[in-house]
C-alpha cells in the first residue's frame, strides 16, 4: 500500500564485484578531482586492506594527496578537525573512506566541515536542516558488511569535550560512490561477520516495518533479507568465499539504502543506548534485541513481518504456512538463525552474555527514549516497555 506521502533518495553510485577497487581512479576523474585524502584505521592498515586500495589507485594512475589512519573506534570531533586541517594542508580535493561505520562517519564529518565551511560541527546538528554546501567528492569503501553507512544519510560523531553525541541527518551526507569489493571483507573474523551481518538484517527488517517505509525502501529491504538468509552462514563458515562475501556486502548496502529512507525503530533506539551506557558492541545489541523487539511490535506489525517469511525461508515454507501464522514464524525464523550463528561462532544471544548489568537498565531506558529512532517505531514505546524488553532479553 502506498503511504499518503513519502520521500526516497539514493544518489550513490554502486561499484560491486571483482576488481571494483581498480575503478576508483576512473570515478575520481569523472568527479573532476585528482588529490583524494585516504581515511582508514590502524587495524586495516596493519592487515593490508588499506594497501589493497592504495595499490588499486596508484596502479591506475592516481596518487593520494594524503593518508590518515589514526581514526578511533568512535568517530570524534577532534579527529574530524585534525583531518580537516590535514586535508587543507595537503591541498586535497576529495575523500576516500576505507573502513567500517566509524571511518565512514568520520569521513562524513570531514565532508561536512569542509563543504559547509563551519568552525564547529555542533552548528550543523539536526535533521534535514543542512543545505548542499560545496560539493566534496566522496567515495566509501566499506570493509564490513553491516553498517550500510556507505548508503546512509546519517552520521554520528562524538564531541568528547562537550560530552555529547552529535547526530546529523542530511541527504547531502550520502557518498558519491560506494565500492563493494569482496577483497575488502575476506579477512573479517567469523564472529564479526556474524555480528555485522545481523546488524544488516536488523536494518532491513526495521526498514521494512518502520513508519517511513515505502515501496522503494521495501524493495531494497526485501532483497537484502533474501541475500542475508542465503549467504550469511556461508560467509561465516568460509571467509574466502567471495560469492558469499560479495552477497553480504550487497545486502548491507541495500539494507543501508532501505533504512536511510525508512529509518530504524525500537531495536536501534535501545541498541544505541546499550552501546552508550554499557558499551555493548552494536551488532551484538542488534542480535540480542531483534526478536524481543519484534515480539513487542507484533501487535502492530504481525502482517508486515509475515511478508518477510518469504525472503527468510523461501517460497515453499511461505506457501505452506497459514497467513495468520506467518508473522510468528518470521520471528521464530530470526531466532533460529541466531541459534545457528551462536553455535557457529558464539554470537551472543542474551544481555547477560555481553556483561550488561540490571542496575544499568534505568539509564539505558532513559537514553533509549531520547533516541530519534523511537519516533519512527510504529508502536509507542515508553519507559516501562523498554525495561520489559531489556528484562526479556537479559537471560
Amino acid at each position: 500500500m502506498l503511504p499518503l506521502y513519502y520521500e526516497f533518495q539514493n544518489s550513490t553510485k554502486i561499484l560491486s564485484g571483482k576488481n571494483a577497487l581498480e575503478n576508483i581512479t576512473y570515478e575520481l576523474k569523472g568527479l573532476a578531482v585528482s588529490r583524494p585524502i585516504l581515511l582508514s584505521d590502524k587495524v586495516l592498515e596493519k592487515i593490508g586492506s588499506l594497501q589493497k586500495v592504495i595499490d588499486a589507485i596508484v596502479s591506475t594512475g592516481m596518487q593520494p594527496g594524503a593518508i590518515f589512519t589514526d581514526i578511533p573506534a568512535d568517530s570524534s570531533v577532534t579527529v574530524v578537525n585534525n583531518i580537516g586541517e590535514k586535508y587543507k594542508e595537503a591541498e586535497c580535493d576529495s575523500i576516500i573512506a576505507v573502513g567500517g561505520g566509524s571511518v565512514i562517519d568520520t569521513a562524513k564529518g570531514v565532508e561536512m566541515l569542509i563543504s559547509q565551511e563551519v568552525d564547529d560541527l555542533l552548528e550543523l546538528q539536526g535533521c534535514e536542516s543542512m543545505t548542499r554546501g560545496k560539493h566534496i567528492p566522496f567515495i566509501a569503501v566499506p570493509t564490513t558488511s553491516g553498517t550500510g553507512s556507505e548508503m546512509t544519510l546519517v552520521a554520528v560523531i562524538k564531541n568528547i569535550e562537550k560530552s555529547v553525541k552529535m547526530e546529523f541527518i542530511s541527504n547531502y551526507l550520502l557518498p558519491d560512490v560506494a565500492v563493494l569489493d569482496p577483497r575488502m571483507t575476506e579477512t573479517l573474523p567469523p564472529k564479526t561477520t556474524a555480528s555485522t551481518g545481523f546488524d544488516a538484517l536488523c536494518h532491513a527488517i526495521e526498514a521494512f516495518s518502520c513508519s517511513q517505509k515505502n515501496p522503494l525502501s521495501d524493495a531494497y529491504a526485501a532483497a537484502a533479507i533474501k541475500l542475508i538468509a542465503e549467504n550469511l552462514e556461508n560467509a561465516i563458515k568460509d571467509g574466502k568465499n567471495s560469492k558469499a562475501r560479495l552477497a553480504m556486502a550487497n545486502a548491507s548496502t541495500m539494507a543501508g539504502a532501505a533504512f536511510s529512507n525508512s529509518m530504524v525503530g525500537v531495536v536501534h533506539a535501545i541498541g544505541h543506548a546499550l552501546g552508550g551506557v554499557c558499551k555493548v558492541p552494536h551488532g551484538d545489541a542488534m542480535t540480542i534485541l531483534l526478536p524481543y523487539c519484534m515480539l513487542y511490535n507484533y501487535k502492530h506489525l504481525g502482517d508486515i513481518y509475515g511478508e518477510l517469511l518469504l525472503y527468510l525461508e523461501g517460497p515453499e515454507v511461505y506457501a505452506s504456512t497459514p497467513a495468520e501464522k506467518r508473522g510468528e514464524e518470521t520471528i521464530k525464523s530470526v531466532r533460529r538463525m541466531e541459534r545457528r550463528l551462536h553455535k557457529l561462532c558464539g554470537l551472543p544471544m542474551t544481555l547477560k552474555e555481553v556483561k550488561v548489568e540490571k542496575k544499568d537498565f534505568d539509564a539505558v531506558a532513559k537514553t533509549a527514549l531520547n533516541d530519534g529512532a523511537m519516533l519512527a517505531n510504529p508502536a509507542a514505546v515508553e519507559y516501562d516497555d523498554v525495561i520489559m524488553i531489556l528484562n526479556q532479553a537479559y537471560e
Partner: protein
Amino acid sequence: MRVSPKKRGRFKGKILFEKVIMFFLYRGMKVLYKYDTRVHNEIADWPIGRTIVLAASQNGPELCMRKVSWGIVRTGNIEDPDILISFKSIEGAFLVFSGQIGTAQAYAQHRFLVKGDIAEVMSIVRCIDLTEAYLFPKIMTKRILRRVPEKQMGSIRVYCHAILGV
C-alpha cells in the same frame, strides 16, 4: 508571478488557524507543566535558558519559547535558537495543527526539519503529544497518537486555564 486568489485566501486562513493552535499549544504546555507530572518532568529536565522555536514554515508563524526556572515563557523572535523545529510548508504544519496527522507521522513524512540536539527534540515532541492529548478530542488523538496517554486533569480545565492564562 502571483499566487491565485483562491490559494492566497486558503493560505491566510491556514496561517490564522496555526497562530491560534500555537497559542493553545504554548498555554496548554504551560498549564500542564503545573498540573501534569509527565509534562512537568520533561520540561524540568530542559536546561535553564534553552531557547526553542516551533515554526509553521520558514516565513510562517512561530512559537518562540525560553526555559526559565519556573517553566517556559513565550518570547519574541529568537534569531538562533538552540532547538528549531520548522515545518517545510504551511500546508505540512496545517496537517499537524489540525489534527490530521501526529508528530510521529509528520516526521515519517519528512514534513519538518530539526536543528539542534535530536535527544532534546524527543522530549519536546513528547510534550507536544501530551498537550495534544488534552487539546484534541479522543476521536482525533486515537488516530494521531501511537498511544493515547491517560489525562491527569480534564480537558475543559486545561482550556479554561489556558484561556485565562492562570
